[in-house]
């Protein structure tokens, strides 16, 4: 039996797969950020809080309304997306004409407020949320035990990511969106309601975060800080992929999950920093990110 740097290949396959699973969270979250940045030019720092809200809405659905996981998977993105629409209309629309920095500060402030409110009501140690009965258990793949739920996470996020990419890059609606980003005045002159498009896009990006939150609820602790821990990494992913690049966000999300997974085997102490090291390197060599277009 050969070994690679002291790690047996079976263990390595297992870790590669795990990395992809974590990568799917990065992908779906950075995709939401990329959509919002690409089309609205807003750096949405509330993304982590919105991801957390998704998980909490799933928990509330189950505990207050008796609504199960599958319904929550649909319901939570709608509910949280709706709050996103309110935020866009009430706050973001007003500062759209100013510098990026204002949007960043505003959404960062909102994130702190949202997290604080949830912490106040639900405490910081988290709430229990079980794996849906249809997806418990797992399969022995020979080299590792793959829980069914994790398999589902990869499939679900891949489908959502590709569908989003297809919608923005290949459909008529996506063409409107891109046109509205390039030249809002001209697009509006063609009779397209640009403000509505912008609002719906933000709502959609937020809904993606909430969707990831529901996916995460059964495997990570549902607590108010779950988004804050993740959002910094996700921002690094977006920067590496290139701000605003849809495909870039998806590909980088999965590959960085993979790299992080491998770091956990070879040098676990560095696993929380490896993404930032890559970010520094990428910024030095390609400041616009791997998939970004220099303006």
């Amino acid at each position, binding site marked *: 039996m050969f070994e690679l740097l002291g790690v*047996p290949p*079976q*263990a390595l396959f*297992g*870790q590669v797969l*795990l*990395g992809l*699973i*974590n990568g799917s969270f990065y992908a779906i979250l950075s995709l939401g950020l990329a959509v919002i940045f690409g089309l609205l030019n807003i750096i949405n720092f509330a993304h982590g809080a919105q991801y957390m809200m998704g998980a909490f809405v799933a928990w509330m659905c189950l505990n207050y309304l008796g609504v199960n996981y599958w319904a929550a998977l649909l319901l939570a993105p709608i509910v949280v997306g709706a709050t996103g629409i309110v935020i866009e209309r009430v706050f973001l629309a007003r500062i759209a004409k100013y510098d990026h920095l204002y949007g960043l500060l505003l959404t960062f402030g909102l994130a702190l407020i949202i997290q*604080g409110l949830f*912490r106040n009501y639900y*405490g*910081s*140690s*988290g*709430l*229990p949320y*079980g*794996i849906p009965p249809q997806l418990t*258990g*797992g399969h022995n793949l020979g080299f*590792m*035990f793959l*829980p069914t*739920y*994790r398999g589902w996470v990869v499939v679900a996020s891949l489908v959502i990511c590709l569908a989003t990419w297809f919608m923005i890059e290949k459909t008529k609606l996506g063409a409107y969106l891109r046109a509205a980003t390039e030249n809002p005045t001209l697009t509006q002159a063609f009779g397209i309601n640009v403000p509505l498009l912008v609002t719906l896009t933000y709502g959609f990006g937020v809904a993606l975060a909430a969707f990831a939150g529901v996916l995460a609820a059964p*495997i*990570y*602790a549902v*607590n108010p*800080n*779950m988004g804050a*821990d*993740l959002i910094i990494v996700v921002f690094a992913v977006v920067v590496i992929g290139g701000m605003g690049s849809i495909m870039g966000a998806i590909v980088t999300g999965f590959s960085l999950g993979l790299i992080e*997974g491998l770091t*956990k*085997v070879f040098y*676990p*102490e560095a*696993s*929380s*920093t490896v993404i930032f090291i890559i970010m520094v390197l990428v910024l030095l060599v390609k400041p616009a990110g791997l998939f970004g277009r220099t303006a």
Partner: protein
Amino acid sequence: MNLKTLLAATALGALMAAPALAQQISVKAGVLNDRSGIYADLSGEGSVIAARLAVEDFKAAEKGIKVEIVSADHQNKPDVGSTITRQWYDQDGVDLILDVPTSSVALAVSQITKDKNKILINSGAGTSDLTGKACSPNTVHWTYDTYALAQGTGGAMVKAGGDSWFFLTADYAFGHSLERDTSAVVTKAGGKVVGAVRTPFPGTDFSSFLLQAQASKAKVIGLANAGGDLTNSVKQASEFGITQGGQKLAGLLTFASDVHALGLQAAQGLVLTESFYWDRDDGTRAFSERFAKLNGGKKPTMVQAGVYSGLLHYLKAVEAAKSKDSAVVMAKMKEMPTDDPLFGKGSIRVNGRKMHSMYLYEVKKPSESKGPWDYYKQIAVLSGEEAFQPLAETGCPLVK
């Protein structure tokens, strides 16, 4: 009011208050802990509530001792904790600091407390170094430490046949200290440690580390972490079929609040060591009921109970010494036996180690639990002498 009258009024006030001040001692206690992060539920505002209850039960006002309680969030960062500590001691007139979870912060605060000659009664932190090589004449370590956790949970697991161990260790002072102390217990009892992995703190996904633990074929996976790290790793261990595969999990530091967050479905069967459980006897139940009313229905953790017990003993010592001079009060605290309904009778050793029994619990199955917070069944009791490190082995320079 112009400045002159204001000054005159102040002077008059001071003059009138002077005789009263001569008899009254006023103490300012600072509760320094995590109020927003992963340890906020096991310490946080609950510890402040516990401190207030201690003042209430001591009947401080009737005894001529005025107690003021302040609190702050150290965010689990040693630099933040140090800054607050310095400000409290230098500018705000704080006499003692309570709680301080997160070992790295606790070690920093203990050092500053020694330099400024104040008092630290630590309840939240785990590292046994606080009463070992980093011991201080100004620090009492109240509730538990990594050595006692290792003796309790580690000893029990080895006795039950778990003689090979793999550690998932939170990569900071507390995790290292817990891994070291538990390894010593395991090896001494004839077991062996087959491996360990240091996980970045705080972490979210532990599946990768759990697979490494699984591949090691160790009989016991020792979780040398706490709070959110612990709940995430227990949850994911059950997801990856690790416990079903025959390996046992040892949650070396598990608080009641963690079990509450996990739910019994995921936490059942965990063996853990605590010095306080709300449902142990009438005394703990009575306290916990009062506490829960003030804390949104949540029962106290052992850390919060330790803040109550520690402040109560401090106030008794101030009363007996009729002084709040740090050295005098500390001598009195170590001389007087400790006694309260939460931890029973005990004492404080010369190295600052508070001695009391530790209890070994197993988390109930969902079918055994009668309702919320009914989580533990007691398996064994370790006396203070059995649980805590023998004085001679601590390496503390205060022990001669």
